[in-house]
């Protein structure tokens, strides 16, 4: 029997993931993250570097000057972006790369209305959607400025499945990262004369983060392969849960240190909250998945 490359990363995909990770480690490590929280503006130089690395043009056909890769590769890149808490309207700019001039290269920052929210409106060069009545919020996430716009009349429009999936990929990255942070802390922090990770109660919190992360990973990667809107909705719900609850558990494992501004844990939780409010998650995703079940008997 011939054996094909299976439902796992190809060498090229592993290399791409390593490349994005290397770039972000170098350009957006712990120091840069702290500085960004202080500054709270968008680092245009980093944005152009992302553009030059092909982050935005990843799925633009080679004939049009893009990288010519697909959704699986985009998902791997966005997972890393999520892991590093990379700020900026990444999804909107990535989606605009084929249509808005300058977006692919990272020369232009593109923001977009998503439901009743707009991320990074003030920093954007191009804004997609009606923002005439946009009002600034005091965003819970120090690295995601938010505006609110009135809800559109009529029924909720179906979101772009690719945007929903890329958000899921970012959430997956958060889930992976908070698992690492929780385990790292549980192994090193000592109380009662032993690492707290030796206590079963703490161990189980860490295990449950992984328990939510691995099914989410399988769902996100599979949805990237099938591009099926129902698969994407499933991936999104699982990834939202893995990120939000994972960050909560990670904070709990960190104890008092997790409650400080100094720790990076709260940044993961807050970003996960922001992403979970984007279109396609929550009740909207659950309804789509329910409708799929209620479809006429096969």
């Amino acid at each position, binding site marked *: *029997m*011939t*054996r*094909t*490359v*299976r*439902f*796992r*990363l*190809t060498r090229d*995909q592993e290399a791409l993931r390593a490349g994005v990770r290397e770039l972000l480690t170098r350009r957006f490590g712990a120091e840069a993250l702290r500085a960004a929280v202080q500054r709270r503006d968008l680092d245009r130089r980093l944005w152009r570097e992302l553009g030059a690395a092909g982050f935005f043009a990843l799925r633009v056909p080679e004939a049009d000057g893009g990288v010519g890769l697909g959704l*699986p590769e985009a998902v791997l890149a966005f997972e890393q972006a999520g892991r590093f808490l990379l700020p900026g309207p990444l999804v909107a700019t990535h989606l605009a790369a084929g249509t808005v001039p300058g977006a692919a290269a990272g020369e232009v920052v593109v923001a977009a209305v998503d439901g009743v929210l707009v991320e990074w409106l003030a920093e954007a060069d191009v804004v997609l959607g009606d923002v005439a009545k946009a009002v600034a919020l005091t965003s819970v996430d120090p690295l995601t400025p938010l505006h609110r716009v009135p809800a559109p009349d009529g029924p909720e429009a179906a979101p772009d499945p690719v945007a929903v999936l890329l958000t899921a990929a970012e959430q997956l990255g958060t889930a992976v990262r908070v*698992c690492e942070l929780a*385990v790292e802390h549980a*192994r090193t922090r000592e109380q009662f004369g*032993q*690492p707290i*990770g*030796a*206590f*079963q109660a*703490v*161990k*189980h919190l*860490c*295990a*449950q983060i*992984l*328990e939510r992360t*691995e*099914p*989410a*990973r*399988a*769902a996100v*990667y*599979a949805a*990237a*392969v*099938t591009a099926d809107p*129902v*698969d994407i*909705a*499933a*991936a999104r*719900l*699982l990834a939202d849960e893995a990120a939000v609850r994972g960050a909560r558990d990670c904070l709990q494992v960190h104890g008092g240190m997790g409650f400080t501004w100094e720790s990076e844990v709260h940044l993961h939780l807050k970003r996960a909250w922001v992403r979970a409010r984007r279109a396609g998650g929550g*009740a909207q*995703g*659950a*309804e*789509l*998945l*329910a*409708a*799929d*079940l*209620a479809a006429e*008997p*096969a």
Partner: protein
Amino acid sequence: MDLSHTPEEEEFRAGLRAWLARVLPALPPKPSPGDWPARRAYDLGWQRMLYDAGYAGLDWSADAGGRGATPTQQLIFLEETERAGAPYVGANFVGLLHAGPTIAAEGTAAQRARWLPPVLRGEEVWCQGFSEPGAGSDLAALRTRAHRDGDHYVVSGSKIWTSHAEVADWCELLVRTDPAAPRHRGITWLALPMDAPGVTVRPLRTLAGSAEFAEVFLDEVRVPVANRVGAENDGWRVTMVTLSFERGTAFVGEVVACRRVLDELARAARDNGRWDDPGLRRRLGLLNAEFRALWRLTQWNVSEAEAAGGAVPGVGGSVFKLRYSHARQELYDTAADVLGADSLDLDRPWVLDRLSSLAYTIAAGTSQIQRNIVAERILGLPKGR
């Protein structure tokens, strides 16, 4: 990342599908759950049909009498048989998924020749004598004793949670042969003939009301030394081969089955009007996401196993087992909300399944033990003192 299949695999699927469509309508009616001899005959009959059609021991290696199929083919087999509503592995479970693979991996040529073909041909049933009243999750605490007497072991003790014990020909038995050794090092694996003098089987009634398990009492039972698989006192290592099988692939067909139940639940909710309750409807939607993800996680794990040369599924199976067992309970709890007051009527569909689902977070390692395994062996957290 690729979810497509090779032409060979599609051919395999088509052939299997055609065969199932041909043979399933001709199957005898399912025996009643309480009729153990009839259940044995039915399950063995199905295994014989698989054997005659060349589907027995699909995932077993060729030198164990199997087909040496890839994990992906095994996945296709489980998917298609479940979709077609084919019989479950039933009484053949321990033979095909526990004892058989252990003998294939650790037995001598003579042992393989004696025990494996009857399992594949549907002629002999195995049961499992691992757990004891005092050794559940802490299996290494087992106390059933065996001492040598010439070319026999003399075994005394008791085992519990033994499925199909009433109708089994053989029992894969763990016994303590060296009480002085560290507890993992004094255990031996024996094949016990269930008709040996001194073996008593007592059915064990579960909270579901039926006797799905049994207790097995062993009083000075003589087991030939030739029935030992692996070295004396090496039974723990021999057994771990088996247990990692259980955690890896045993639930694949059930995930497919759960997805079918979920579709039936949605139809039932539509019919009885509870579909209009957004809370319930969205819970069903979330379960759709859950079981889709579990299926993808299965495919992912199988691909990883395939890449590792078809190796035994490892501790990664613990993550799957944890998530699946809780999802299954949530599925039947949701079924109860679809049923409303009918969920209190044992004659309604899904009510017994709800009761049975309570075992899933306990059997084959409780969720709490699984989380210790995940935390220590995957995440690298230290063992407690």
